[in-house]
């Protein structure tokens, strides 16, 4: 029998009082961990979008809503495909690639997916008109980072859909599967699949991005248009600008060129996400404050009640020879265990919540952040011990003569 087993046996004797005294801390940690996880990932997502898609521009139907750059083409509205030609013919400065997309829901062997028709880059170079247009393209700005029109080796693999949001070659009967789709449908390279009434061969699968792209199936734009009988329309045209300066002038110029469309930049799209982040960040501080107040107070009062209830036991322990320090540690250790357990369970619940609902809630994939988790558990434990400090001191000051008093 030592301090640790005394604490442990007393805790085991009253599991419900354990649960009730540490519930506030548990819930507080869960909420905090969930919110912080989503916020951190959402912020990372914003900066990732800004840095990787900095110069990218979306041409969308007027009515399209803006939530997430990656999901902007899933809006149900369409634009005429001619706009693609118009953009290329206009020979605007800073246009690197133009990628039209047509997206619609579809079913792949019972699995709900987003079918995205995309025009491979090779088709632009093949068409004489666009070739000519390219000749009229004014010289590029000095200092452009993405210099070359020449497709690199990496651009020729399907993975380029993830890295440059375009693909060099895609046959009319080929598809590329997003990571989620590949995993859940169990189709892999070379398999033949039925989709929207057409037959396709799987050209490749993409690695996980944590965006809605994971649940997409990419096919040739014109095949999708034929199968869906949609006519020559697209849901979005992504213009990949060559550098950020170009993006600045490009937007007004494109707007002028296509008055019936909505032209937006990444930074405009991420504005919504930044707003969400700010709200979440504010909320997490509010939750933290509440956690400290409510969690700390409820634990402190539970420990104080526990001390009152165990007065005779404390007196007896002191008569047997326990020092006041031992008695104080008895309650501090109990609080430490409560804080650690409530913090750990709360952290796991918060993490699961964030991982499960993060993608729907904030449109980002959430991965566990070990540092944050450890800090949350540590903070909960520290809070519990601090809350118990005063009642534990009161226990240590109790009069051992209590042991002679009748019940």
């Amino acid at each position, binding site marked *: 029998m030592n301090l640790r087993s005394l604490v442990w046996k007393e805790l085991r004797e009253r599991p419900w009082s354990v649960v009730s005294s540490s519930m506030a801390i548990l819930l507080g940690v869960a909420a905090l961990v969930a919110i912080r996880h989503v916020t951190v990932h959402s912020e990372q997502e914003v900066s990732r979008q800004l840095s990787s898609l900095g110069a990218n521009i979306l041409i969308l139907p007027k009515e399209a809503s803006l939530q997430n750059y990656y999901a902007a083409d899933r809006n149900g509205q369409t634009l005429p495909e001619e706009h693609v030609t118009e953009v290329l013919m206009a020979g605007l400065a800073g246009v690197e690639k133009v990628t039209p997309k047509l997206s619609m829901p579809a079913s792949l062997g019972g699995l709900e997916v987003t079918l995205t028709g995309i025009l491979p880059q090779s088709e632009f170079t093949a068409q004489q008109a666009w070739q000519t247009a390219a000749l009229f393209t004014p010289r590029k700005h000095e200092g452009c980072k993405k210099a070359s029109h020449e497709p690199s080796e990496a651009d020729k693999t399907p993975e380029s859909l993830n890295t440059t949001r375009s693909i060099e070659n895609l046959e009319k009967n080929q598809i590329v599967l997003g990571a989620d789709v590949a995993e859940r449908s169990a189709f892999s390279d070379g398999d033949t699949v039925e989709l929207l009434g057409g037959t396709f061969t799987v050209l490749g699968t993409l690695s996980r991005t944590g965006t809605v792209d994971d649940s997409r199936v990419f096919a040739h734009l014109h095949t999708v248009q034929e199968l869906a009988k949609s006519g020559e329309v697209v849901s979005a045209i992504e213009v990949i600008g060559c550098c950020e300066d170009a993006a600045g002038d490009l937007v007004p110029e494109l707007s002028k060129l296509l008055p019936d469309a909505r032209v937006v930049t990444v930074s405009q799209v991420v504005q919504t996400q930044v707003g969400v982040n700010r709200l979440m960040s504010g909320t997490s501080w509010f939750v933290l404050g509440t956690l400290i107040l409510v969690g700390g107070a409820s634990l402190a009062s539970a420990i104080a009640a526990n001390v009152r209830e165990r007065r005779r036991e404390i007196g*007896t322990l002191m008569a047997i020879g326990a020092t006041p320090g031992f008695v104080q540690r008895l309650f501090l250790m109990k609080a430490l265990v409560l804080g650690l357990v409530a913090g750990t369970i709360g952290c796991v619940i918060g993490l699961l919540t964030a991982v499960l609902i993060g993608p729907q809630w904030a449109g980002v994939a959430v991965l566990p952040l070990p540092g944050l988790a450890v800090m949350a558990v540590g903070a909960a434990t520290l809070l519990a011990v601090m809350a118990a400090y005063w009642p534990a001191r009161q226990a240590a000051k109790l009069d051992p003569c209590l042991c002679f008093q009748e019940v």
Partner: protein
Amino acid sequence: MIRLENVKRIYTRHGQTVTALQCENLCISAGEYVAVIGPSGSGKSTLLSLLGGMLSPSSGRVWLDETSIYEQSVVARSTIRRERMGFVFQTFNLIPYLTALENVQVPLGLNGVSLPDQTARATAMLQRFGLADRLNHKPSEMSVGQQQRVALARTLVNDPQIILADEPTGNLDPTSREVVLKAFDMCHEEGRTIITVTHDATAAARAKRRLVLNEGQISEELSSFAKVA
């Protein structure tokens, strides 16, 4: 040897002062078996608390051998209790969430005895009190007599030189009471000092010396009482 030197204990409550105990000189030698008798409120528990190092006197000194215990730190007094004293209570004061074995292990644990030794010594002590088949019972699962035997085992497991008992037989039936008194007899034979507070004349008669407390004043009882009993 325990000695009270000009000890006075005063309680102040609601502006009224109560002299719970007053004693110019009381000496209890090592190995003595002393019963303290007296009416309720006469200061018996106050005396035990003073002797046990748990209640500072308002004035005077309490000596344990060459040490004035209230001139020591609280921790030092805890150590004295842990190493040299054992307490027996009227209401047993077992820890409700621990089994009989664990209750008896507590004082050993406080003295830093290793767990295997704790188990061995506590088991042996409980066997001595006929509780070999109750090791894993909680106090609530035992009879009153069994609880007091567990409490006695807990008191004696640390091999204390001084046993301080407050009404140890107050709640017991005659058979259980006899178990307690036998244990005290044995402790006396082993040379331990026993100071027991009791209302029970038969219990008091077993002691070799009786002190009478009356309104905080201590006096020796006439030794003729012993012969009568």
